[in-house]
């Protein structure tokens, strides 16, 4: 009942000075538009980069060569402890011992900048050859477009078969199916059995020029000396991931014949860590963007305060009358605060709509990322609007409430 009365009073007094109220609302609208627009764009870009970062499937971790610098940037000064690479026989032993935990384990050897030829066509350059097993598709999230995957038999027999990436298919098999054809790289013929679906670029690395062959065939051609076999392991579920990592560490220690006191001589890399490293950067950028975009909102808040002060001065007489007929300090205060909050909320609602339209527009137009609806930011900005109304309305409302009724009635 009382709330309704307050609401009606607020709308009425705001309606008296329509131009003034709308200008104030416009200020808030622009402020909220700025915050929501910027945050929508930032969030949209972030989520699209993050999905790109998921090179490895979820629940997957890798044993990596200790020299690879995955943190990126900066100089890593590393004390070396005479680490030897993980060999293929160690990897096989590891896979055997892990059998009861998970099957999905991929050993991986690779060489890049390989040149491939098909019949009489001009050679293709800069390809990446990966020696691996059938689970490569699972752990590295490739999809077989058509043909078949590598099989365990291929690996056991060291067959010269290959699954080729989308770019290679596009470049040399324009008008024919590659399946069953023989492609030659580094002087060795391989029969193509399957084609990967396009995967696209990831941070500038083309993943579509990969050729997967059985690891045994890879070793036969390129040899294993000095090569570090990367091992990717997929845990059955997110819940068991930590357990599997523990277990895998123990098994690897056993395989590497480390005595109990010795440190691990291998590194484990989790995809989540890459994402969390990116998250850190993303958070800094988002915070910066938020602060810059919120400056306009601050200016809008100052505008509200100013206008509310004017409104208090103009209505001094009205306040005097209300007080002399028994209005409490509190109700005067609530009346003015409510007006300020109402201005902010109307402005905020308009700003949210414009901001989401503008932000998604910019994100799709300039950065070609899918649109999103930032519920969290929308809710947050409703809260912000209320807080801004409260903060900047507080002083004027307080001034109105503490007017002396006799002086107020006398005010000219």
């Amino acid at each position, binding site marked *: 009942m009382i709330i309704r009365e307050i609401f009606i009073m607020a709308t009425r007094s705001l309606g008296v000075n329509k131009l003034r109220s709308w200008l104030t609302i416009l200020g808030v609208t622009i402020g909220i538009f700025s915050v929501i627009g910027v945050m929508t764009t930032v969030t949209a870009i972030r989520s699209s980069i993050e999905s790109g970062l998921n090179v490895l499937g979820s629940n997957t971790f890798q044993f990596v060569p200790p020299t*690879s610098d995955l943190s990126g940037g900066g100089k890593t000064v590393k004390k070396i402890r005479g680490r030897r690479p993980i060999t293929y026989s160690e990897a096989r032993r590891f896979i055997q011992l892990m059998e009861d935990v998970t099957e999905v384990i991929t050993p991986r050897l690779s060489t890049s900048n390989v040149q491939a030829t098909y019949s009489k066509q001009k050679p293709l350059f800069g390809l990446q050859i990966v020696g691996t097993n059938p689970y490569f598709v699972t752990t590295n999230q490739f999809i077989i477009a058509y043909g078949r995957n590598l099989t365990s038999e291929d690996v056991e027999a060291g067959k010269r078969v290959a699954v080729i990436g989308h770019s290679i298919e596009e470049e040399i098999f324009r008008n024919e199916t590659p399946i069953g054809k023989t492609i030659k790289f580094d002087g060795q013929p391989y029969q193509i059995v399957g084609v990967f679906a396009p995967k696209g670029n990831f941070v500038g690395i083309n993943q579509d020029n990969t050729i997967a062959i059985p690891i045994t065939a890879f070793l036969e051609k390129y040899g294993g000396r000095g090569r570090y076999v990367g091992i990717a392991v997929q845990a059955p579920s997110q819940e068991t991931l930590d357990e599997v990592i523990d277990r895998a560490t123990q098994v690897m220690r056993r395989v590497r014949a480390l005595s109990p006191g010795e440190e691990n001589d291998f590194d484990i890399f989790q995809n989540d860590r890459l994402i969390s490293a990116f998250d850190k950067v993303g958070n800094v950028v988002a915070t910066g963007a938020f602060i810059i975009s919120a400056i306009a909102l*601050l*200016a809008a808040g100052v505008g509200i305060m100013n206008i509310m002060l004017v409104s208090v001065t103009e209505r001094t007489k009205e306040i005097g009358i209300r007080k002399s007929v028994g209005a409490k300090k509190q109700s005067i205060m609530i009346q003015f605060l409510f007006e300020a909050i109402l201005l902010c909320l109307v402005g905020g609602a308009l700003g949210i709509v414009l901001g989401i339209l503008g932000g998604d527009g910019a994100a799709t137009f300039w950065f070609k990322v899918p649109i999103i609806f930032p519920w969290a930011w929308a809710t947050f900005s409703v809260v912000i609007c209320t807080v801004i109304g409260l903060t900047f309305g507080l002083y004027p409302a307080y001034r109105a409430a503490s007017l002396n009724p006799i002086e107020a009635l006398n005010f000219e």
Partner: protein
Amino acid sequence: MKLARFINELEEGSRIAAQQIYANKLRSMLTALGIIIGIIAVTLMGTAIHGIDLGFDQSMGFLGDDVFYVQRQPWFSGRDWMNFRSRPSLKIEYAEQIEKIAATTPDSQIEMALPECFRIVPVKKGDTQLNREQLIGGLPGFLRIHPSVVSEGRFFNESDAMAGSNVCVVGFNIYKALFPNDGGLEQIILVDNKPFRLIGFFIQEGSFLGNGYDDTLIVPLSSFRRQFNRRQDPTITVKVKDKARMVEARDELTGIMRRVRHLSAGKPDDFSINQSQALKDYIDPIKTKIALAGLFITGLALFVGAIGIMNITYVSVKERTGEIGMRKALGARRQTILLQFLLESVSICLLGGIIGLVLTYGICLAAQSKLPSFPIDLSFELVFTGMIVSTITGILSGFAPAWSASRLDPIVALRYE
């Protein structure tokens, strides 16, 4: 005559504006605060963008603005990389051939040409290992193309190059990482597990973005090829005589390269000539985008401040309706009233602008002491622009209310309560 009246009006208008601003101190301060916030945001953003620009140019310096890099593919090739990869290799001899042809060309723009090879290598000394450092195989003339200064020791000379001896000169950061206690000269370090004798290191070049040659090792090309990769394509680095005539030099170089490669007239180039301009061309649109976005967002704050001024000027017109009526009844012209209110809003804006610029200056000084490597340059242009922007803001936002004041009918205005 007219001018005298205008000056008179200007004088009186300013007096009234000052009185009004003073009479409503809190209101004027709050209105100015809106502008102050806006001006600080915009000028700080402008300074930051300018600083990033400067830093970028400094870091680009090491590529040289008078140098061409002849390579198999362009730096920013995008989707066509496969076509470029299948181009025939470049040869080390090209450098000499280019110089020879240039020497016989009248008015040649080409000063010198050198082959260089690049590689990313691990570097080791005792227990310390650096994982990814840039290794360059070059000739003794290297420093004539890439001006860098050897701090201690020496650069390798012709006899090192002839003998193909395993000597290396390293960047400052590498030296410091390998020999924190100094004394590294004449020591043996392992470059990709091959022993090299360290004969000198460069002075520190570090800048805001990128580090010049601070993280680079340079060895004679002959030992580079023997130790690492004999077949790798070299980059032919070509220095021009006059960087004001890069376009001519580029045409000349293209012609020479076509001759060196024996390309017949109809055939397309099978090499790419890169220059630091290409990097600039690639980065500039991105920089512009970021700058526009930043200025747009901070400009919104200024816009909100302007709306505040408009609003307050409307209030002030309304409050002084009676006064306006009186002045009009006594013969004040429309322009006089218009000018008076415009002066009021412009002076609030200018006041806000000046305070804002002073605060920006303070913030810049504070930032400078915290981040000495970031080039901060609060330029005169920026201050000037800031003042112009606040004046224009005042005029634009004050105009509508001032116009409505000047249009008031004196009879209605006088009766207004």
